[in-house]
């Protein structure tokens, strides 16, 4: 049964039904940062409880520098924007007041894909998730796209 994406309107004031599609069932098995990193079988987060996975070489702190370093371990480097570039895949890290809140990845056709907490995977416009919940995009990173760069 198709799920009406407007269930997310309350969370995202920039919600645009023409740019927002639910692409998976709900799953608590992974979160947005894992999804941006190409994993759909685990949680990525530098939580102090040690619940989630975090690259062992990177500090478990909730700040933007640490999230940048985590994605550098996957071969990403900072880039200026989220435009589609031939041969590159990009991720975006969101923040509120300097605290990371969300991650998204760009698909080959240029649209953005996210896992929304413990809920659905969605594809969305670059600005669709801006707002009180996730804040805004803090930075973009990119790496050369290969044929099988995703772990799942």
């Amino acid at each position, binding site marked *: 049964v198709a799920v009406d994406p407007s269930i997310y309107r309350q969370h995202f004031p920039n919600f645009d039904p023409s740019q927002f599609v639910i692409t998976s069932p709900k799953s608590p098995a992974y979160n947005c940062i894992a999804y941006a990193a190409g994993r759909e079988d685990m949680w990525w987060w530098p939580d102090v409880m040690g619940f989630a996975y975090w690259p062992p070489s990177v500090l478990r702190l909730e700040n933007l520098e640490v999230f940048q370093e985590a994605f550098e371990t996957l071969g990403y480097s900072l880039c200026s924007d989220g435009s589609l570039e031939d041969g590159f895949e990009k991720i975006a890290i969101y923040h509120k007041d300097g605290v990371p809140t969300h991650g998204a990845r760009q698909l080959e056709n240029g649209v953005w894909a996210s896992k929304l907490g413990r809920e659905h995977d969605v594809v969305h416009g670059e600005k669709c998730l801006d707002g009180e*919940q996730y804040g805004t995009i803090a930075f973009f990173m990119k790496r050369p796209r290969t044929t099988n760069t995703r772990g799942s």
Partner: protein
Amino acid sequence: MNAALKYSDLYSYGFTDRIGTLAATRSTSKNYQATRIDYVEKFYRALKKLAEDTKVSSNPMDFVKHHAFREILSIGEKAVPLVISEISTRPSLIVLALPMLTGTNVVTPDVQGNLEKISSRWIEWYRRGGRP
């Protein structure tokens, strides 16, 4: 005056009578003492609130910092079987309450991030009577 328990709320969050039998009503007389039904009801009410308020958050700390999570912790060790029941039904971040409720932790680096494996570890720990 009796207050009816909303069974639909409990069952919608996976509660079954394998935890124990619930009475459907409770007395509010001046001699009333807290019973099992009070904390079970409190647990599932808090869990429902927690799940709803944090569902689009990817930060496990948002879950732990929520006032409903603290309500669950306030139940104390009596909440442990309820958490185990919940994670036996479906993987859930409520597993994060177990280290705080029990004072122990079964998460090792090889299972970090894997909610299903972490839940399995805790279920096994509980079956062994709460021993390592």
